[in-house]
């Protein structure tokens, strides 16, 4: 035992001296970016390490997206282990703060890193706060968009002279357009991932936002008052597409993409994160001419569901991230934001306004076309029950998804969803 201790102490000493020699801060980084965006993030990290050689080095680990990631973050923070910085969904922030996994980022730290609230869209910056305290710095805004097949839309007379779709705004207009596309030979007017609650939640929440509906109001009531009626109206829109055979019923995620890329569906509603899929297919010559625009306005005004990848610092109990390390972490966060143009290749919209307003971004297609949605984005309700892989997502699977597919009546589905979630409030 004694000799083991000796070895341990010697190696610890050795490590600390090598640390001194390099005088370099090593920032341990965790993310959940395993897909096409992960490849782009790794490139960004490499670029950072290259530019900051001898000062800061990021050592990154990618973990499983969703509940596994957040469970690991929470358990490691509770025993004083874990990273110095991590990616975090803003929608998941309230639960992270409640479970004590996140460390507050002070105004001084933000200022010292050269960042400021005015560099971000207001709704985005606020979504990074819980009870007025900042727990994260937004990195991107990601949302759902409407992908379209240019040839099919053109044939149906739905393409304007500017090459963008026209006549899609309004519930009836959109349905008429779907019918035209179907009549023109498409198997479906629009393909949607209708077999799961998460994708349907994103469409539903956009349609609710377009009517100024509140899913969760300030008094903590789900779908209170006329919000229920607005929710039912939102459900009816998509239910109608499926019932009329204009959108596929109970279709899984990969199949919903394949329906579009295989030319069976003229349009496709999905997240911006599938932009690399289309870009890559096109580059290989395996895809038709395609485009993407922000979701049409079905109701009163534009609004689209959105979430943000952000950066957060864990609250490591008994082993807090040191002040020097925190400063380095803030440098990393600021650098990533300022270099987030590369991140737009993954389809995401940079959260950092100076990048979003830059010439380079404005000429990046199709991002520039749909990035207007950032102005009217509606973020998930700020609640421990909402966000990625949350009870709200589960409820969407239990009630919203069957309603879309005609298994449940929209009215009773929304009432059940409301009662279920209200019953989970503690």
């Amino acid at each position: 035992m004694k000799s083991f201790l000796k070895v341990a102490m010697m190696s610890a000493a050795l490590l600390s001296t090598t640390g001194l020699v390099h005088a370099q801060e090593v920032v341990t980084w965790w993310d959940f970016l395993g897909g096409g965006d992960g490849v782009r993030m790794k490139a960004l990290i490499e670029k950072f390490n290259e530019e900051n050689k001898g000062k800061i080095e990021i050592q990154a680990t990618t973990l499983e997206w969703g509940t596994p990631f957040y469970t690991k973050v929470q358990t490691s923070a509770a025993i004083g282990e874990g990273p110095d910085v991590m990616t975090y969904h803003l929608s998941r922030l309230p639960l992270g703060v409640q479970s004590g996994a996140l460390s507050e980022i002070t105004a001084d730290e933000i200022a010292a890193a050269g960042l400021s609230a005015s560099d971000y869209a207001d709704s985005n910056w606020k979504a990074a706060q819980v009870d007025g305290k900042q727990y994260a710095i937004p990195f991107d805004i990601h949302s759902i968009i409407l992908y379209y097949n240019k040839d099919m839309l053109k044939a149906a007379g739905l393409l304007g002279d500017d090459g963008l779709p026209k006549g899609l705004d309004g519930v009836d207009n959109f349905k008429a357009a779907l019918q035209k596309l179907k009549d023109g030979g498409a198997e479906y007017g629009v393909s949607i991932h209708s077999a799961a609650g998460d994708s349907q939640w994103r469409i539903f929440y956009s349609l609710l936002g377009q009517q100024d509906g509140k899913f969760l109001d300030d008094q903590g009531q789900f779908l209170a008052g006329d919000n229920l009626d607005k929710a039912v109206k939102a459900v009816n829109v998509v239910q109608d597409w499926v019932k009329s055979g204009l959108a596929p019923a109970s279709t899984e995620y990969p199949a919903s993409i394949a329906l579009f890329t295989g030319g069976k569906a003229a349009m496709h509603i999905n997240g911006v994160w599938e932009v690399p899929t289309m870009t890559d297919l096109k580059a290989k010559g395996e895809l038709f001419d395609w485009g993407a625009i922000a979701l049409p306005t079905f109701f009163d005004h534009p609004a689209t569901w959105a979430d943000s990848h952000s950066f957060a610092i864990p609250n490591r109990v008994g082993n807090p991230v040191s002040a020097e390390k925190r400063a380095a972490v803030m440098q990393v966060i600021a650098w990533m934001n300022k270099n987030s143009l590369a991140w737009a290749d993954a389809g995401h919209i940079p959260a950092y306004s100076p990048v979003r307003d830059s010439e380079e971004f404005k000429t990046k297609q199709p991002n520039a076309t749909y990035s207007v949605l950032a102005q009217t984005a509606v973020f998930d309700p700020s609640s421990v029950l909402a966000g990625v892989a949350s009870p709200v997502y589960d409820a969407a699977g239990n009630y919203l998804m069957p309603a879309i597919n005609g298994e449940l009546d929209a009215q009773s589905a929304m009432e059940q969803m409301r009662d279920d979630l209200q019953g989970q409030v503690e």
Partner: protein
Amino acid sequence: MSAADIASDVPSKARKRRFNTREVLAALVFVLPFVLVYAVLFIYPTIQMILLSFQKAPLIGAGTWVGFDNYAKLFKDKLFGVAFWNTVYFVALTAVPSTLLALAIAIGINRLKGWVQSLILACFFIPYILPVSVVFRVWGWMFDSQFGILQPLIALVAGGNVPVFRTLPLFMPTVAFITIWWTIGFNILLFIAGLRNISPEIYEAASIDGTSKWRQFARITWPLIWPVTVLVLTIQLIAQFKIFDQVYLFGNGGRSDATMGLVQLIYRSAFQKNNGGYGATVAVVLFLVIVVFSVLQFQLLRARGGDNK
């Protein structure tokens, strides 16, 4: 008679031999690593889990004592009822069918000879080595409601494509079928080992006496393979009560409240909703259910098997 009386009855010489210090020490050295690991990794967490079920506690960190509140909540929780019956339903769909099917296949394979036997056995065993994610992907695509290779067959019966994993009455039977396909190889292997242990001489003697094949099975094979059957059934029962992966994967995003099993309820309560106390309560109840079922089943079947002999 007290313990001391019994001890004094034993001649001191014999006692010395039986409790030889060096032997005891050696035994301890051999047993200790296991006992330690077992205590640290099983006994201690189990006690903690039981204690946790009496607390209102997050997934991590201290909780407050609430007595039997969690248990009271559990028996009023509609979801617990659904999860319980789903689990029992799944066990009924898998445990006995999988055991009987494995026996039938094993008897078939046992009649084959040489490399044909090895090949067929391998065919049945290969799915068992697949990770659940691969099983999920393979069957997910085969049953896919748009592009699934099985849909033309389904359309012959149903008149159109059927989203099998999004049709509630079809969900559990389909997942049970896939589970049997996936795990039956191991049961077959156990049965083949059991069948090979039956001496060919018994069958020879029976054939000379002119016994029919069916009587051979009923009078020789079935009684002699009975202990293996009990073992397979018990392993199956315990494994299927802990059903999680397949149901979670195939049901993810869908009507998970209607398809969830008990382990999924534990996962959701503790890991997703950060309610460690309630998750532990469900776990304790599942633990008790499995203990009761498997002890009962093992005892009952063993007793019956004894009668047959």
